[in-house]
């Protein structure tokens, strides 16, 4: 594995959607009148606050997430990016991603987003099947989704879209067909999520059942096989890409590197001298806006995490990656030795069972281990 370069990402959360989807447990809200100028000012103030202590970092990525950031005025995005350019040095391969929905009104604005500085788009397609889209409560149909992907491909060099699978009743054959269709659009990056039912969602309230373990396993295995074959192997549990097309911003999270969280409910991690701090913003949009306007930041909590918590976070994120966690990188992040921070008996048991490998100084979850990662982590880190 090549040496991992230092990276520093900025996440910006736009908390508004045209409609709340029944499976979504993100910090997203539906609101009629949004004062984009007010929000812009608040984002800028929070950016300036953190710039004061991180101006020595080289920013490698910005990610506009939500909510539905494609509902932001392109001018707001442009102004935010301009401010980031003023406050920090940015890398040569600076990646600027925005999430977007494929409804026709948003698709029309793709060109404007490109103009504003976005160089990678992540489209929330979720499905190319009208019935499934209806079940998922999406505002677009399959035809719009296809059109959105096609037009985005002309505008953006780098593009990804999301699909949700393991919907109630979905058979392996159906999913195989759907995924095959999606691949005809020649994507370079795909995020493929199994539907999970999260507390606080409409699906949870309606007692929609997630696919059982056996079906979930079968669909997951089909996905891995098809994507490997298509040249987009998984580089993370649910993310697939052609070589070099990985999301650099998301790799920051999975590689345990530092990032800022700007906007309501956003999280950040900042490390100095091997001490990592966890930063959490207030979730409620109105409250965050007020705090950011008056105090310059909408912080809820900022606390140092313990060495054990840091270890757990690095492994809980890092083992999601096919590349695993190298002892060198771990040492760079923590100043400590990876091997001696693990229980050898537990590690051995997982290696014997074929869930983990620790060779050439790299700790990796095998495909079988990644498929059961929650249990593997609970065993390894207990």
């Amino acid at each position: 594995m090549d040496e991992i370069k230092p990276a520093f990402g900025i996440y910006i959360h736009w908390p508004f959607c045209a409609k709340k989807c029944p499976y979504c447990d993100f910090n997203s809200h539906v609101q009629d009148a949004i004062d984009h100028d007010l929000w812009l000012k608040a984002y800028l103030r929070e950016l300036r606050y953190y710039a004061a202590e991180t101006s020595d970092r080289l920013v490698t990525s910005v990610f506009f997430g939500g909510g539905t950031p494609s509902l932001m005025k392109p001018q707001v995005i442009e102004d935010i990016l301009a401010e980031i350019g003023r406050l920090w040095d940015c890398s040569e391969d600076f990646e600027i991603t925005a999430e977007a929905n494929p409804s026709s009104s948003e698709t029309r604005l793709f060109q404007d987003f490109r103009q504003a500085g976005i160089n990678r788009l992540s489209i929330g397609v979720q499905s190319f099947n009208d019935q499934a889209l209806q079940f998922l409560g999406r505002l677009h149909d399959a035809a719009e989704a296809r059109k959105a992907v096609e037009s985005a491909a002309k505008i953006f060099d780098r593009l990804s879209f999301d699909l949700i699978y393991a919907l109630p009743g979905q058979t392996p054959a159906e999913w195989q067909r759907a995924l095959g269709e999606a691949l005809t659009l020649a994507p370079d990056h795909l995020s493929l999520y199994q539907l999970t039912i999260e507390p606080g969602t409409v699906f949870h309230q309606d007692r929609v059942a997630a696919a059982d373990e056996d079906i979930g396993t079968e669909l997951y295995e089909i996905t891995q096989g098809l994507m490997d074959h298509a040249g987009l192997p998984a580089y993370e549990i649910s993310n697939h890409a052609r070589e070099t097309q990985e999301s650099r911003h998301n790799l920051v999270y999975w590689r345990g590197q530092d990032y800022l969280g700007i906007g309501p409910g956003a999280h950040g991690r900042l490390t100095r001298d091997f001490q990592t701090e966890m930063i959490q913003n207030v979730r409620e949009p109105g409250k965050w806006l007020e705090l950011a306007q008056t105090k310059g930041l909408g912080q809820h909590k900022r606390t140092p995490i313990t060495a054990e918590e840091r270890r757990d976070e690095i492994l809980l994120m890092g083992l999601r990656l096919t590349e695993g966690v190298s002892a060198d990188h771990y040492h760079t992040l923590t100043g400590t030795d990876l091997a001696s921070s693990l229980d050898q008996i537990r590690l051995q048991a997982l290696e014997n069972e074929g869930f983990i490998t620790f060779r050439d100084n790299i700790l990796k979850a095998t495909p079988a281990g990644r498929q059961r990662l929650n249990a593997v982590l609970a065993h390894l880190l207990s």
Partner: protein
Amino acid sequence: MTELTHKRNFAIIAHIDHGKSTLADRMIEFCGGLTDREMQEQVLDSMDIERERGITIKAQTVRLTYKARNGETYELNLIDTPGHVDFSYEVSRSLAACEGSLLIVDSTQGVEAQTLANVYLALDADHEIVPILNKIDLQASEPDRIKSQIEDVIGLDASDALEISAKTGLGIEDVLEAIVERLPAPVGEAAAPLKALLVDSWYDPYLGVMILVRVQDGKLARGMKVKLMSSGEVHQIDQVGVFKPKTTKVDELGPGDVGYFTASIKTVAETNVGDTITNEKNPTAEPLSGFKPSVPVVFSSLFPTDAADFEELRESLAKLRLNDASFVYEAETSAALGFGFRCGFLGLLHLEIVQERLEREFDLDLITTAPSVVYRLHMTDGSERELHNPADMPEVTQIDYIEEPWIKATIMVPDEHLGGVLSLCTERRGDQIELTYAGNRAMAIYRLPLNEIVFDFYDRLKSTSRGYASFDYQMDGYKESDLVKVSILVNGELVDALSFMAHKGQSEFRGRAICERLKDLIPRQLFKIAVQAAIGGKIIARATISAMRKDVTAKCYGGDITRKRKLLEKQKKGKKKMRQFGQVEIPQSAFLAALKMGDD
């Protein structure tokens, strides 16, 4: 004081729901024992559980003053007895305090097994018995058929049975007249030394232990020093009284009287039901016959669902025992389940009552292990010992032979369900002693190993007869049997609390059942888990819990890290509470659930 000739002491024998408590209420009402306001439905059963389940646990009593049709006034003492086989000794002592019984039979249902057992106890006590057909107001009432059933099954003359409705009050006065006319008056010598039967005792938070007595000879008065003959303990009497049904102080109790006294006794464990109470200075020569200390026949372990409740469980058991000396307990430690208590009970109902009272009155959440009977181990060195807990089973090589307790069971069942009941008894190693028919009901008497009853006999009997069979039993000695201890192993390691004793012929079936049950209860893990049942070193049944196939969070980005880490921490913490078997950790809750009685 009322003359002996104007006293009557009587008990009421009835099956659950046949109307005993309602009749008692009507009689109290008729004699004016309580004002309407004080009349709570079924005043006699004062504990919640008793009222809800229609069973009496403690003997209770009420003195009625009745002006008979002959113009004379009589003092009638109703002694309400515990109505279940688990308490048959207590029942026999209550009956010993009376000269006669009212036998109540629901005229829409007929004689049930429990009724029968108690009638036999009453006949043993030389009681005069007045048969009464209740619920005569109901459409489904069949007095003639039930009368002939009483004659056929019990052998009592039912020609002059009373026909009443306790609910509507029809025939209540006839019942009171029958008590006066047909039941004998007590006999006794007022001048003789005190001789009184200890019928029951209970703890009253204000008065301390209250002792219910029936005076045979002599007098019992405030200030006297009395001796409890079984223990030799001497106590000075603080208070003497009767129940009307409210406690009412009196100066003294004489021959034939039923009442209570208090004497600053702290726990009911110091008093033994059936004991004889006499005067310390001038004792009676011979105690009353029939006394025996209570012996637990069914053992089970109680574990708090939350280990933190252990001390509270200990205190609650101690408090409960203040009022119920018939159950015993001692602390027990299980590697799989943590700290709990091994408890002995008079029977299954007694176990259930204690468990329910702990949960209800003391607000504890408990797990009760499968009940076990008391085995007699005859060792190769000639000694004999009792086995209360399969976990304590010694090496097989040290045992010459094992005996298990048997019961004599009486089952009453409608004809159409007889076949199922008979095959159930056969399957449970029963020997048929008698099978008789009365009308469209059959009465089967079987000898059965108690071990087979405590397993799930009641549930099976109920389902096979659609709830129509009634069942009663009495202990019927010990018999040598081919018994083995079945151990349960998880990944090759013993789970102590799941061991059980079984007849060799049924060990495999029962071992398999518990393996299958654990298979359903133990969550899938990263690693395969083997569950086995074994006798000694020989595996007799096995089940495999296959490894989990997928368990991974689909989405995990920057904003999710904190939440996912906290989830992981919770999992790690949970694992600390688990019991480790090789490389797998199994939650205690799985074992607890496997042990839980009654839900299959």
